[in-house]
């Protein structure tokens, strides 16, 4: 998995910018919907117009605290906003309102699973609230760039990890876990294409055993898990090549090019970064009381890890199935609703949801929230298996029909006459017919070719149009074949 050459190790820390899914901006009442016409969601506050003042969005704070509690972090009882200064056209005020010395979240951690099944703890140094910048548009202009400030002022938390990560794969595992949590919490829509969840990777390399970290580079805004992996791998290889050739790593900001899979040094923001942070005098300290924090803690949803453990324990699922079914909050809720409403075996429900339903959704490129079959409707199908109205094989057909929108499970069963045959005389008649039509196979079976049993099951099932109760059919077939 790792392409790091013998004797070297990489040291990786990630900074994740996570857009908080509020209605309005962090310091203004402008909307933050993605994809609007340029500058139609930028009010005078976002445009940095003279005399404009920020007022903090209550929901941004609540979401930041929610995040902190979910990664076992400390929530600052008092935190402040600071101004971070640099000149850039997507930064209308000439400073970004961020947090510096006193962030709202500090000292958390996240346990990630490695490929060998072991877990590794990644420290979360801090997470602070800040406003997003706007965007520069380069296409369609000759000597100019266009500035769109719709995104300026969108609430972010910047989540900074400890340099605990050693490989690109660990980085991806950490990111995926973080992504899953913020989406679970409902604090971020997690859309990486739209930039709702972005990652900057700080990478350095050193000889194993070296006492100090090497010089690091920062690769900016890598917007998919795959690109993160590629960008880090490229950067590790590049740095080792430079060092092995006797060169030095320059501390710099780099950009990943998805087309080439390479990173390159950025040409702007070249100024010695002197951000001149100081407390924003337009904003006062944010105080989080114990009661406030406790109330948020009490309203935290069950996180994937806990849910997964509960599914294993309460439903007797395999860890694999439990992991699949808890991969999103909506899927887990769907599964639990199916179990509750169907009264069927949780394991049976798990198989159906994880294999059949997800398989079908996958084919349609749909998420669980867009499923054509509601949890209640799906439960009705499983109920008919549990009460032996239909068998599993028929149930697959019913399911297909449900996906095709032909109605509810019961309607389809009734319309197609699929009710399971449990009348033993009818099954016996079918079996006798099969035995009569296949004398050679009967002889072979009786002569010791046990494998032919499946053939008889298939033939008998066919004769009942698949409707025979499989248990009864098996038992009766065995009796008859025994002669």
């Amino acid at each position: 998995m790792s392409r790091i050459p013998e004797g070297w190790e990489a040291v990786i820390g990630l900074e994740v910018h996570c857009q908080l899914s509020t209605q309005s901006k962090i310091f203004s009442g402008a909307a933050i919907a993605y994809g609007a016409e340029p500058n139609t969601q930028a009010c005078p506050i976002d445009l940095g117009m003279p005399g404009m003042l920020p007022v903090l969005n209550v929901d941004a704070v609540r979401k930041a605290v929610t995040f902190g509690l979910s990664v076992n972090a400390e929530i600052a009882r008092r935190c402040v906003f600071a101004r971070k200064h640099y000149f850039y056209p997507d930064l209308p005020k000439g400073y970004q309102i961020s947090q510096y010395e006193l962030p709202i979240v500090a000292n958390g951690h996240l346990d990630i699973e490695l490929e060998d099944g072991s877990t590794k703890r990644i420290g979360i140094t801090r997470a602070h609230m800040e406003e997003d910048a706007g965007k520069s548009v380069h296409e369609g202009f000759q000597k100019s760039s266009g500035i769109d400030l719709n995104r300026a002022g969108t609430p972010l938390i910047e989540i900074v990890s400890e340099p605990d990560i050693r490989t690109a794969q660990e980085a991806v595992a950490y990111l995926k876990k973080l992504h899953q949590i913020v989406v679970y919490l409902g604090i971020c829509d997690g859309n990486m294409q739209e930039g709702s969840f972005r990652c900057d990777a700080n990478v350095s390399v050193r000889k194993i055993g070296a006492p100090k970290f090497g010089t690091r580079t920062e690769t900016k805004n890598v917007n998919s898990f795959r690109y993160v992996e590629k960008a880090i791998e490229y950067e590790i290889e590049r740095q080792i090549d430079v060092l092995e050739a006797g060169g030095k790593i320059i501390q710099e900001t780099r950009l990943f090019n998805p087309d080439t899979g390479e990173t390159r040094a950025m040409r702007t923001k070249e100024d010695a970064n002197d951000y001149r942070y100081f407390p924003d005098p337009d904003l006062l300290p944010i105080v989080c009381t114990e009661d406030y924090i406790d109330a948020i803690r009490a309203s935290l949803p069950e996180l994937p890890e806990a849910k997964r453990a509960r599914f294993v324990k309460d439903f007797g699922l395999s860890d694999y199935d439990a992991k699949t079914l808890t991969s999103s909050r909506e899927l887990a809720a769907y599964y639990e609703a199916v179990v509750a409403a169907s009264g069927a075996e949780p394991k049976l429900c798990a198989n159906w949801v994880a294999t059949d339903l997800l398989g079908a959704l996958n084919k349609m490129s749909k998420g669980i929230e867009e499923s054509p079959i509601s949890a209640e409707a799906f439960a009705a199908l499983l109920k008919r298996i549990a009460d032996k109205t239909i068998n599993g094989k028929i149930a697959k057909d019913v399911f297909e029909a449900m996906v095709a929108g032909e109605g509810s499970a019961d309607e389809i069963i009734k319309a197609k006459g699929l009710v399971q045959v449990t009348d033993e005389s009818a099954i016996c008649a079918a079996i006798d017919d099969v035995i009569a039509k296949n004398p050679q196979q009967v002889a072979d079976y009786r002569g010791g070719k046990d494998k032919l049993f499946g053939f008889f099951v298939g033939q008998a099932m066919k004769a009942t149009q698949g409707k025979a109760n499989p248990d009864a059919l098996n038992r009766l077939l065995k009796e008859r074949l025994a002669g």
Partner: protein
Amino acid sequence: MSLSPEQVRQVARLARLQLNPEQVAPYATQLSNILQMVDRLSSADTANVSPMAHPLDMVQRLRPDVISEPDRRDDYQAIAPETQDGLYLVPKVIE
């Protein structure tokens, strides 16, 4: 503390101010005088004094998360030096 002309140029660069060359020397003198006046601050004993960022002993008030600002792009861009297709224009940004 006094500022050399070179330091004045550096600070002006950080503040994105183009200075005429003939302004640099007088600025250096004036800024040095101001800093000398300001240097008196070091005479104060501020051990165990917490910095005061603000005269108000209040905490930040929070705004409800509602959209209250309509789109008024045309009004806002009416005073912009250069726009095209709703975008503010600047000389090409090279990243």
